[in-house]
C-alpha cells in the first residue's frame, strides 16, 4: 500500500561520475582562464557567487551599513578522465581575500597550480601564502608566452621564496601540452607527498 514512487526512480542515464577539483590560482591577468581553456574539453564556463563582506572605507554615516554584498566570478573547465571520473579546474578569483569567504571554492581541492608572470611576480605572493598557510599542495607555473623566458627557475624560486620541494615549471599556457604538464607535475607532487606521509 505504498504509493510513494520516489524509491523506484532511476537515474536518467549512466551513473554519476566521481568529481575532483584542482584550483588554478595567481594574480589578475596571469593566464588562469588561458590555462583552463587550453586543457578543458569544453569552452571555459563562468559561475558567480554572492559573498557578504565587511565593508571597509565606505561612508558609514548612520553606523548601520557595515556589510556589503559582492559578486565574485570564476571560470572553470573540465577534463573527463574516464566514464567514472571527471577533473574540474577552477580558476580562482584574483583577490585572495574573497577565498576566505568562499570556503566551498577551496574546500576539498586536490591541490592547486599557482601561475606567475615574471614581469610581476608579486601578484602571485597572495596565492602562495594562502596555500602554504593551509597546507594545500601546489606547484608553480611560470607563463612564458611564445617561449619567452627572462628568468631562470632558480631566480623565480628565490624571488617567490619557495621551498625547494615545490615544483616550478616554465611553459606557454596557450599550449595544451604545457598546461597538461603543469597538472601532471601537481599530481606527481601529491603522490610524492603521499609516500612521505605513509612512510
Amino acid at each position, binding site marked *: 500500500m505504498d504509493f510513494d514512487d520516489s524509491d523506484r526512480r532511476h537515474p536518467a542515464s549512466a551513473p554519476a561520475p566521481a568529481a575532483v577539483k584542482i584550483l588554478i590560482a595567481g594574480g589578475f591577468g596571469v593566464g588562469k*582562464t588561458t590555462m583552463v581553456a587550453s586543457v578543458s574539453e569544453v569552452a571555459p564556463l563562468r559561475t558567480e557567487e554572492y559573498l557578504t563582506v565587511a565593508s571597509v572605507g565606505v561612508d558609514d554615516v548612520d553606523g548601520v551599513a557595515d556589510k*556589503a554584498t559582492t559578486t565574485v566570478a570564476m571560470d572553470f573547465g573540465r577534463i573527463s578522465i574516464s566514464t567514472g571520473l571527471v577533473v574540474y579546474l577552477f580558476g580562482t578569483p584574483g583577490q585572495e581575500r574573497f577565498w576566505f569567504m568562499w570556503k566551498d571554492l577551496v574546500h576539498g581541492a586536490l591541490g592547486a597550480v599557482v601561475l606567475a608572470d615574471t614581469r610581476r611576480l608579486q601578484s602571485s605572493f597572495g596565492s602562495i601564502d594562502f596555500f602554504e598557510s593551509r597546507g594545500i599542495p601546489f606547484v608553480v607555473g611560470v607563463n612564458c608566452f611564445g617561449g619567452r623566458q627572462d628568468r631562470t627557475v632558480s631566480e623565480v624560486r628565490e624571488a617567490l621564496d619557495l621551498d625547494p620541494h615545490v615544483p616550478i615549471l616554465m611553459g606557454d599556457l596557450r599550449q595544451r601540452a604545457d598546461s597538461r604538464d603543469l597538472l*601532471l607535475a601537481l599530481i606527481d607532487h601529491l603522490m610524492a607527498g603521499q609516500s612521505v606521509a605513509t612512510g
Partner: protein
Amino acid sequence: MWVNHWADESLEEDPDDSFVRPYTITHGRTSSARDDLTLITVISTLTSPDGLIDNRGLEPEHRFILDQCRTPCVLAEVAARLNLPVAVTKILIGDLIDTGRVSARPPLAMAAGQRPDITLLQAVRDGLRRL
C-alpha cells in the same frame, strides 16, 4: 546594503537587476537549507521506471535543471548554464532533491577525507597523460 561587482573582468549587467531576479526565482529564499551541496557535487536527474521525468508544477529553472542533468552534471556547471549564482542554484537543486527528482553525489576528495587516495591520483595522472 550597497552592491559591488567584482570579477577578473567587469560584469555588464545592471547590479540591482541581477541581485533581485534570482531571489524572485527562489520565492525570496536566500540560502539553501542544505549545507551538503558543493561546487562539484554531481547532480543526476531521476526518472520513473518507464523513463519519464516528473516536472509537474515546476518553475522553468527547475525544468531546465532536470533537462540539463539527464547527463550527470556538477552543480557549478548547472549554475553556469542557468546563468544564476551558485547560492541560488543550490536552493533550486535542494528543492529537486527534497522531492526525489534528482540525486546528488558528493565529491570524492571530501568523501575520502583530507588526503586523496593514491589510486585516484594514479587514475588522474593516467588520464592527463592521454591529453
